[in-house]
């Protein structure tokens, strides 16, 4: 199983989505030009629970958005509610299989290692899993950053200090206020790139 790569802006979005909601789980979808290459992350929900109609609407809209921006669904990310929980829970596994179908197979499931979030700066704090026979198997060294790890993590720590994670909007935020751009999160990307 080969490793996946992720760009700093995509990494930033998923980490800060988790940082924005430290007391609950989060879930989002990963996009990229081809499987194994992650260039964007779309945050879907905080407090990840099995509400089928909500999740279906999110996945369908991401699918349409990906087609319109010449990109593909290549995986998903989750951060669990409890600090030391780095497992692929039953809901993540199930939704993961749906996302894998949308990706046409070979997708990657990233679990955020909450305890390693932004500390140490040398660690991405992510665990990678790939689907095999209907289950998610861990891939050691399964995810690398397409950039400098230490600098990126430093920038993110800085962002959190300045409360930039509040600029990350997920589909749930969008339903409360449709002017929030959950598909692109352009405002956050600008702030991140300026740091």
């Amino acid at each position: 199983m080969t490793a996946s790569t992720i760009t700093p802006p995509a990494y930033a979005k998923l980490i800060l989505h988790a940082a924005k909601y430290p007391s609950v789980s989060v879930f989002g979808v990963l996009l990229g030009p081809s499987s194994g290459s992650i260039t964007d992350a779309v945050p879907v929900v905080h407090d990840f629970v099995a509400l089928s109609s909500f999740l279906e609407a999110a996945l369908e809209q991401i699918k349409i958005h990906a087609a319109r921006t010449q990109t593909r669904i290549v995986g998903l990310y989750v951060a669990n509610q409890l600090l030391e929980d780095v497992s692929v829970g039953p809901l993540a596994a199930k939704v993961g299989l749906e996302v894998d179908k949308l990706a046409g197979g070979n997708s990657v499931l990233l679990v955020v290692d909450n305890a390693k979030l932004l500390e140490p700066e040398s660690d991405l704090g992510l665990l990678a899993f790939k689907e095999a026979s209907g289950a998610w198997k861990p891939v050691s060294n399964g995810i690398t950053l397409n950039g400098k790890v230490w600098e990126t993590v430093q920038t993110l720590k800085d962002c959190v200090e300045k409360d930039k994670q509040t600029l990350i909007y997920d589909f749930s935020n969008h339903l409360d206020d449709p002017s929030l751009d959950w598909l692109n999160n352009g405002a956050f990307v600008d702030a991140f790139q300026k740091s």
Partner: protein
Amino acid sequence: MLLEAQGQYEDALELYNAALKQDETYAPIIKRKVAVLIDQGKTHDAITALTHYLDHFHADLEAWTTLSQVYLRSQMFQQAAFALEECMIMGGFNFLYHIRYAEVNMTLNRPAVALKYFCSAVEVTESGGGALRAWYGVRQASHALLENHNKVSLGNTGSNPKQSGKKGAVAAASHGIQESVDNDVVSPEEWKALNALAGERIEAIYKAKKVSTENIEVVKGWLNTVSA
């Protein structure tokens, strides 16, 4: 609570249990105990403690809300629905309970019940922005009902369409509250009308909020997948 914040759960629990020995009905401490159990990941124990608490302090909306969240996170949908019903009795003015109840019913494959509560959520919501979640649900639930109806009536040629619609809703649903819905007279025509209305309302909300054209196109594309 300091011990809780430091992650020393067992020590915190010892303190709480000692306090409860002095007065076993002191509600705030019982609730802290539940919070500790949830943080420890001891879901089963948390549920036992919380339901025991609610047996004695029935009218605690916050506790019922917490219980519904714990059930939902443990994929216990039937129980979550029950807890949300209690929430709606006490807090029926809060559209979020209606919506969550409706969403749980969608997960339980009961689109008829879901549709009712997405509609009641619309009624209870004041601003158009808050109702977006509800209109999304009306669109999805009405679409699901029409899909089931079409599947059933394809094998039911010649029978009364109103009846097969109800049969379709029954066939698609599981037991329980569904029985009370059988006496409803909502028909496929009304599902289609609600579906169309939801689409109109959703597009109107997006336009009013001056959402980007790109985003509106994505939403329109999605609306097509859940149309009548």
